[in-house]
């Protein structure tokens, strides 16, 4: 009697009469034979529960009706608002509480005996109740799963029941979890949709056990059905009732216990790979696949988490298992494979990983030790997948509503795939190309162009290029305008990209363009080509010329050289020219000869392209001139004056850093006022900026630079002429300046413009820029200005060459009249004051004088004897030079240069008064210069003799 005092009993021994009375009372009450009050009935029920064990079935059945009634009231209350007051069923709740208290105490005292009884009772009752009231209006309001749960949990009866059930579970879970889970599953199958909330609730109370058990139950069921139906198993998987409820339960638990589910699935999978796995466990993999086919959540787990675990070792094991276990009939394995493919097409987030995995496995270059079967199988899967996708994607054109999760997911990873395509060469290219095509087709034109652009700008090798071409061909069938868009996207990227990638991207573009040039034939002229598309983006490419990375710049200039430029707006022309000229001078600074050579040849090509329009050639000329006279570039072209004062500073730092920094901004799109766009004036704390220094160039380098510069200027001045005579140009590509002047006429207009530029750059003001030459005395007025002009020429020796070039034009030099005048005036003043014995003792001045006269002669300013005076200077004394120059001045004063004249040399004639000085000078030096006399005078017998 030790146990008699436990729990519910009061330790009293009831007489048989009492028990009989209570039985009678209970039976009468519960069968409504006589009116027994609710409380009394409950009392006798509970009495019987603890005194008459054999009556427990009846009591529990009675409790069923009590709970049912309570739920009914609850639902009624919901339906009618609270109009039905609780008076109608006053004590139902207390009855429920009492009885649940009893049952709870029973479970606590002897869980082994009571828990199975009560758990199956409560679960069945819950199932019954929830399906019974599911159609009621009150329950219908709770449409969502959570609301349903909410509704049932607020109802006392159901809450009590579920508490009881979970108590039973708690006590059974340690010893025999199969019992409760089986009951749960059966109920779940029986009362399918309405019972879900119970499963979910219980599941969330015991996630670990429930999930594992549910999976095991499913596996058993799957095995059983699978083996009994053999071939038809795959198709009829949906018919296995427990599978559905397994999936349903897991689906409910996924929200809160996703991690647990994940773990359980992984554990299941891992167990199946143990060497001692049973036959049941060996069919885990097909089971999991089928599960996944029924639930996207599980599929997600499978695709995201499982792929990580599939190491070569495991794959080999799986292959072995598959071969061993099934000795598969061909059809069976086929259907399994098609299931896998189907799942992959359905996979969402993890799709990228899956694809990546499959590619890795099929890639023969991977040194993983895989069984050949695995590799072959993966290849089959991948190929089937590609085919399937092709079918679906193209069918989707007709019906755009079709969803294709894999492509959706791959869309976001498309660029990674592209990178894959680029980095992993040949082996996976074919499949990847196809795959990318379908992704592109699926996700619309903008994404397609993104993908294409990515491939385009990353393709370096020829086979990657082929991928691009393939994809373009395929995509153009769907999106005819894809190419321009793609190029646009690529160019946009170019501007967003950070500094380093630009070169690569441009290289990619360059590859394509070069390929097109080499392969595009006459018949395909109508076809849209990349280079044609690029024509719209020339300014953007040109901005890359200012890039700090020389490779990028080179790529940009090469690309520009490949593109045929058409008419552009002035602003674009200005931008392009500006960038180009900056680049050009940067190239000159470079010490890498190969780089310089290739860059310069491209530069010439670009200039040729640019100068098709006169505006462009003028702008270019102007920028070139400005660049040449700019302080930092002067050194490159032979300017030496500045160097004298700067010997102490660092040699390498040629350009002002700040200017460079600000130039960088032009590479990317104009930024809003960010700190990076603010021009700053140096670094605080480092004091004054150190003066920049030029580098000392060799004479050869200087000459080469000069030649390059003048070459460009020359091309500019050629204008359209080159197109009329391309063969000449072709021949002189490297040496455009030497001796070709007479073959090709330079454009007078261009030369005029050049001349005006020169004036503008050298003359400090416009006041005395008239063409005519004033009195000699007037030199004293303009002395400062003249000195300045001379100084400019001294510091930029290349200007002499430019002037030389100008002088080849018929009357272009006229515009330089004021400069010539200024230099002349300076020289006259110098020689006037010079007290040297010989003019040759002042070599600089002498050279200047000679060159000046040479130019004037070439430009047709001077008639025959006058034009030769320069030749005499080296042997003359300064005074004689002075005299001769003055003579020239006088001639010029009387015969000012007239630009309109067609042929100056015919119009100009030398008056005798101008030759007298020459004659006198020759006479005084007749001892040494006798042989020259004839050159000056005897050649013209008709010339009038001096009086």
């Amino acid at each position, binding site marked *: 009697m030790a*146990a008699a005092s436990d*729990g519910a009993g009061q330790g009293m*021994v009831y007489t048989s009469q009492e028990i009989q009375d209570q039985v009678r009372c209970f039976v009468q009450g519960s069968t409504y034979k006589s009116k027994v009050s609710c409380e009394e009935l409950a009392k006798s029920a509970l009495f019987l*529960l603890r005194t008459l064990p054999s009556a427990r079935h*009846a009591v529990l059945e009675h409790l069923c009706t009590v709970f049912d009634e309570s739920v009914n009231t609850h639902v009624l209350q919901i339906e009618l608002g609270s109009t039905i007051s609780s008076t109608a069923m006053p004590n139902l709740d207390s009855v429920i509480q009492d009885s649940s208290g009893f049952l709870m105490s029973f479970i606590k*005292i*002897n869980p082994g005996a009571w828990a199975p009884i009560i758990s199956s009772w409560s679960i069945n009752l819950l199932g019954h109740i929830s399906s019974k009231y599911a159609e009621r209006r009150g329950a219908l309001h709770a449409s969502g799963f959570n609301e349903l749960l909410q509704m049932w949990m607020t109802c006392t009866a159901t809450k009590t029941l579920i508490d009881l059930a979970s108590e039973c579970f708690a006590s059974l879970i340690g010893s025999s979890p199969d019992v409760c889970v089986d009951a749960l599953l059966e109920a779940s199958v029986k009362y399918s949709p309405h019972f879900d909330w119970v499963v979910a609730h219980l599941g969330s109370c015991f996630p670990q056990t429930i999930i594992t058990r549910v999976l095991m139950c499913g596996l058993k069921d799957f095995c059983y059905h699978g083996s009994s139906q053999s071939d038809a198993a795959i198709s009829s998987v949906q018919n296995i009732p427990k599978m559905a409820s397994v999936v349903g339960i897991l689906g409910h638990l996924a929200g809160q216990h996703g991690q647990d589910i994940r773990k359980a699935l992984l554990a299941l999978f891992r167990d199946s790979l143990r060497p001692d796995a049973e036959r049941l466990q060996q069919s885990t993999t097909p089971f999991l696949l089928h599960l996944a086919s029924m639930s996207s959540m599980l599929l997600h787990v499978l695709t995201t988490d499982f792929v990580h675990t599939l190491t070569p070792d495991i794959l080999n094991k799986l292959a072995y298992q598959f071969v061993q276990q099934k000795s598969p009939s061909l059809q069976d394995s086929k259907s399994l494979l098609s299931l896998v493919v189907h799942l992959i097409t359905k996979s969402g987030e993890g799709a990228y990983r899956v694809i990546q995995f499959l590619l890795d496995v099929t890639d023969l270059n991977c040194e993983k030790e895989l069984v050949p079967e695995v590799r072959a199988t993966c290849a089959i899967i991948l190929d089937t997948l590609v085919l399937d996708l092709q079918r679906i994607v193209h069918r989707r054109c007709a019906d755009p509503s079709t969803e294709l999760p894999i492509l959706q997911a791959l869309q976001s990873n498309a660029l990674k795939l592209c990178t894959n395509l680029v980095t992993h060469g040949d082996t996976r290219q074919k499949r990847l190309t196809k795959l990318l095509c379908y992704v592109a087709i699926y996700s619309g034109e903008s994404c397609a162009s993104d993908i294409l652009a990515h491939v385009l700008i990353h393709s370096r090798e020829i086979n990657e290029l082929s991928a691009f071409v393939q994809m373009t061909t395929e995509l153009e069938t769907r999106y005819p305008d894809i190419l321009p868009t793609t190029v646009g996207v690529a160019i946009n990227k170019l501007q967003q990209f950070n500094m380093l990638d630009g070169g690569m991207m441009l290289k990619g573009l360059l590859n394509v363009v070069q390929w097109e040039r080499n392969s595009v034939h006459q018949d395909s002229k109508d076809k849209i080509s990349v280079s044609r598309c690029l024509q719209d983006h020339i300014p953007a490419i040109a901005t890359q010329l200012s890039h700090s990375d020389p490779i990028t710049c080179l790529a940009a200039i090469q690309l520009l050289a490949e593109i045929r430029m058409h008419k552009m707006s002035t602003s674009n022309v200005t931008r392009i020219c500006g960038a180009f000229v900056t680049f050009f001078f940067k190239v000159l600074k470079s010490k890498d000869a190969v780089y310089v050579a290739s860059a310069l040849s491209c530069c010439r090509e670009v200039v040729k392209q640019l100068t098709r329009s006169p505006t462009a050639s003028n702008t270019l000329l102007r920028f070139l001139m400005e660049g040449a006279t700019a302080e930092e570039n002067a050194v490159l072209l032979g300017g030496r004056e500045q160097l004298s004062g700067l010997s102490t500073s660092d040699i390498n730092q040629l350009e002002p850093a700040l200017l460079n920094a600000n130039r960088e901004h032009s590479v990317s799109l104009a930024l809003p006022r960010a700190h990076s766009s603010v021009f700053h004036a140096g670094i605080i704390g480092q004091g004054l900026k150190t003066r920049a220094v030029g580098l000392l160039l060799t004479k050869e380098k200087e000459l080469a630079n000069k030649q390059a510069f003048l070459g460009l200027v020359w091309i500019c001045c050629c204008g359209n002429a080159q197109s009329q005579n391309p063969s000449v140009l072709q021949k002189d590509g490297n040496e455009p300046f030497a001796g070709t002047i007479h073959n090709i006429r330079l454009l007078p207009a261009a030369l005029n413009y050049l001349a005006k530029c020169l004036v503008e750059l050298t003359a400090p003001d416009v006041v005395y820029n008239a063409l005519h030459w004033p009195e000699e005395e007037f030199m004293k007025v303009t002395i400062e200005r003249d000195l300045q002009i001379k100084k400019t020429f001294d510091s930029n020796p290349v200007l002499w060459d430019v002037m030389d070039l100008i002088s080849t034009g018929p009357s272009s030099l006229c515009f330089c009249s004021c400069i010539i005048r200024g230099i002349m005036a300076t020289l006259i003043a110098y020689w006037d004051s010079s007290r040297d014995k010989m003019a040759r003792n002042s070599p600089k001045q002498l050279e200047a004088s000679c060159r000046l006269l040479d130019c004037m002669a070439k430009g047709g300013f001077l008639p025959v004897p006058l034009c030769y005076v320069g030749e005499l200077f080296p042997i003359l004394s300064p005074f004689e030079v002075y005299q001769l120059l003055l003579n020239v001045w006088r001639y010029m004063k009387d015969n000012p240069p007239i630009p309109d004249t067609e042929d100056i040399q015919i119009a100009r004639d030398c008056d005798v008064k101008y030759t007298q000085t020459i004659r006198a000078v020759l006479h005084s030096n007749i001892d040494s210069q006798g042989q020259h006399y004839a050159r000056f005078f005897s050649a013209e017998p008709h010339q009038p003799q001096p009086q």
Partner: protein
Amino acid sequence: MDNLRLHYLQQLDFPECTKVGLQHIEEYLSQGSQRSGGGGRIPGLGGSTSDNPAQQIAQEFVFFHTSRRPYHQRLSAIQELQVLEILCNHFHEQRDSKKAMALFDVLFGNAGQLEVLCRLVSMGVAVQCKSLLYCAAIWMELQGCTSPNPTKLCKMLVDDYCLLVPSATSVLCGLPHISRRFTCNFMTSVTSLYPFSGDQCPPYALVEMITEWINKDPGLGLVSLTPADKSVIQKTQGRYGQVAQPWLSKVQTPIPGLAHWCIVAPLTQEAIRAKLDNRHGETAMETEHTNNTESKNLQIYSKLNVGIIQTMVSVNPEQSKIYLAMQDMFLLVKTVTGLIQQIANPTENDSVQTALDRLGQFFQVAKGTGGLQCDKGDLSRMCQSLPSNRFLEILQQQTEAS
């Protein structure tokens, strides 16, 4: 006439039809007894169940196992309880044990309604229905107390009263007051239910209860030795035919089973303790707990042992019957040997010695009171496989001396 009855019953509503049905069965049986008393019916030939009207009524109106009443396809649990109540009442009011037994035989004779029978007996215990339990006791004897059906019945009772509703154990405690015969058969069945194989020990409450019964009433274990009233069984003779025969020749008593418990219990305890010792890391509290239950168990089993010996001693020499066969003894020894083999160093182990002492006692008393017939060499053959024990050795010497 039979059809008329059935038809009449079919007109009645549920509880009524059962009540009236029972009356009709009784009526029919009493008529039948008259008829069979006239020798009209040959036992074992005429009584096929399907066309026996009593059986028909029982099936249709007590168990509701018929296709003829679709609306009553299966009784609900409450209705079943109602039926049980009616049956209980009916047996309660039936003072004539012959009639009661006849009715019982019609209802449960072919063991088709074991479930209902179990519940009915369980309820009968609670409501102290003497005649019902008497019938049940006879039924058990007819079936053979250790055969599956009676064992199942007893298991149900143990489950109900000892496991599920511990508060109702007191009801079961009063069992001897209701029916001594049933109690005796119950004990016999129960001992076969828990053979102490492995870890399956009988519930403590049950052992405690049985010990109390036996100690209070030493004759209780021998009730089944007294044959039941022949006339009661006569009617059922025809049905059981061959099954009834062993009952007449060999009577089953709880004594061998209970002795088995007492002898094996210390050994099992030892095995459990050894197992616990192997499992380290037990807290002091747990150890204490196991120690407590152990000492409690030891106590109760030695008490039970005393009870059994008393019972055996109380056998009236005139009526004494052989309740123990030498085969049983050998079987017991075999079990004991098996258990001892699992214990290290058996000769010095207290539990082993206790078990052997009890074995010796049991053998001695059984032999002395005439419950066991054996040859001279039997004891020494018995002791061959057992470790040495002082008491057994003395016994052997005595046997040899005599």
